């Protein structure tokens, strides 16, 4: 194992963490403000990826694709908030789970209808192609670094939005007291639609960025959604800070586990078996991490005041 390889894997872990943060931030914001569990968040991620891939293919510009992904996911988010989600705020979690599960079926099959079953591909934009030399001699793709930087900017932006702006004030007030904020004359319905669309746009952005690394296809949002759930369980539901730390933790632990565990087992058992045991264990590692954290802190690392 070389140092350069380890750095590369670590960065891959951070990059995965950043993607998960974009998903988890929206999920946790929507839960924190509206008390809603949204399974269809992965569908919004998929909408972003498809919008980016098709607009990029049509116009030849990745950047227009990214703008389209933000717009399409935010619009899809606003539409489902107004038509469906709004009716679920006062319902129990079971109803929320089922209705948003139904939305997944509708989104997935609807997308298949529009785009067919074949995956779309999205090229990395010219400006971000190639690799960069890291200290220690490792080469690392510029595009992945760009994802990490984008994630950091979004985290900073969310922090500023929530702590410094009027909209953020309303979001925080909405979290602690829905009735009070309504009494203050804030249009709570519009606020909720905005928050939902914001979360959707973040998911769409994540989908667009990942689209250039993997293929764009129906169902791509689901594994990410479940990882994002693990993130907000670990971080504490409703906490943006928890989402950030949880996302990085899950990203790094998952990536490094897949990298290191087979090598660790190779020290004690024959290589073939080491790969097998290490690989299987690595695939379960973040869930084991989650179980351990929950055993100590049942409400996550940064429980939101409830």
């Amino acid at each position, binding site marked *: 194992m070389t140092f350069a390889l380890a750095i590369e894997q670590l960065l891959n872990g951070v990059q995965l963490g950043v993607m998960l943060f974009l998903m988890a931030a929206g999920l946790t914001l929507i*839960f924190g403000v509206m008390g809603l*569990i949204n399974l269809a968040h992965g569908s919004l991620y998929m909408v972003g990826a498809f919008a980016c891939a098709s607009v990029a293919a049509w116009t030849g510009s990745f950047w227009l694709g990214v703008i389209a992904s933000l717009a399409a996911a935010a619009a899809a988010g606003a539409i489902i908030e107004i038509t*469906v989600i709004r*009716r679920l705020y006062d319902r129990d*979690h*079971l*109803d929320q*789970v*089922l*209705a948003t*599960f*139904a*939305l*997944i*079926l*509708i989104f*997935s*099959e*609807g997308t*298949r*209808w529009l785009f067919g079953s074949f995956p779309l591909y999205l090229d990395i934009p010219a400006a971000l192609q190639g690799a960069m030399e890291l200290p220690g001699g490792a080469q690392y793709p510029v595009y992945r670094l760009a994802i990490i930087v984008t994630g950091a900017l979004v985290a900073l932006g969310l922090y500023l939005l929530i702590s410094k702006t009027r909209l953020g004030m309303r979001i925080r007030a909405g979290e602690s007291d829905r009735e009070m904020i309504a009494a203050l004359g804030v249009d709570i319905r519009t606020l909720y639609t905005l928050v939902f669309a914001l979360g959707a746009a973040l998911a769409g952005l994540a989908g667009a960025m990942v689209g250039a690394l993997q293929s764009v296809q129906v169902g791509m949002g*689901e594994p990410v959604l*479940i990882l994002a*759930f*693990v993130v*907000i*369980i670990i971080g504490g*539901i409703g906490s943006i800070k928890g989402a950030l730390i949880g996302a990085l933790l899950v990203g790094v632990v998952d990536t490094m586990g897949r990298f290191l565990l087979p090598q660790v087992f190779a020290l004690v058992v024959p290589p073939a078996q080491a790969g*097998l045991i290490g*690989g*299987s264990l*690595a*695939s*379960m590692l973040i*869930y*084991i991490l*989650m*179980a351990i954290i*929950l*055993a100590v802190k*049942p*409400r996550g690392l940064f429980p939101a005041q409830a």
Partner: protein
Amino acid sequence: MKRETIINLVLAALLLAVPFIAQAMGQTFTITLATRIAILALAATGLNIALGLGGLVSFGHAAFFGVGGYVAGILSAHAFSGEPMVLGFEGTRQMLIVWLVAITAAGLLGLLIGVISLRTSGVYFIMITLAFAQMVYYFAISWPAYGGEDGLSIAVRNQFPGVNSMRPLNFFLICYGVLIVGLVLSALIKASRFGAALQAVRQNEVRVASIGISPMPIRLTAFVISAMLTAVAGALFADLNRFVSPSMLSWHMSGELIVLIILGGTGRLMGPVAGAALYVILEYLLGGLTERWQFFLGLILLGTVLFARGGVIGLLAGKVRHG
């Protein structure tokens, strides 16, 4: 007789009658559909003990369904190849033993998942059960000994004493019999002292603790019983398809099991049966018309949740009354 009781009996009779008629008309495929209904209804009946009676919205019951399926697949694969498993056990092709092992395995897994998950509640519980089921799913995919991603075939359906289980009608009757046992069991539990405590814990946890009943052991027991019943359904499902794959463990499966209960009507004994029947029939009819039948399933489900929360039985029998 109460209206709901009549509807329940009619449903049970219909499900039993259809395969015989299909047999007489030579429609083997219809028997398979009815068998699917019985098995899915059994799985949902298991889930309903946790979800309906205990209010525990488990989004991870696919784990137990899949474990049941893998027990059936693995035991029969070893019995077939003669290759011994742990402790020299050579596998088995006897359904009764398969079920027993499935119940034990799912019970232990349920205990493990339950002990951790039940420390939490609400949304946390939903997501954690989902995450643990996902863990089992990824394990099944990454562990190549039993087929990994490709799944595992069952060469010849497991055997039941004195019955040729390869004949569709016979296998249906086995599944139907187990379903009836599951339903009776679930009705008994609901009416029992344990069921009273479980339902009360759902309604007001703190209040139940204050009369001296600890909620945790009650919930955990319900969760484990629920896991066991769902696992038996999983074993039957593997035998029906003569195939088991990680898709039995996927979160779509967990979602579908909840959907069956809601389509049929929450808090109803026969809700899972009505829901499974509706689901399988929709799948068959819509699936015949369009490949995209799940799109319409989504719309129907959405409509049910938003506007018709009583489900099928609710539409037929009116509101739930508690004694």
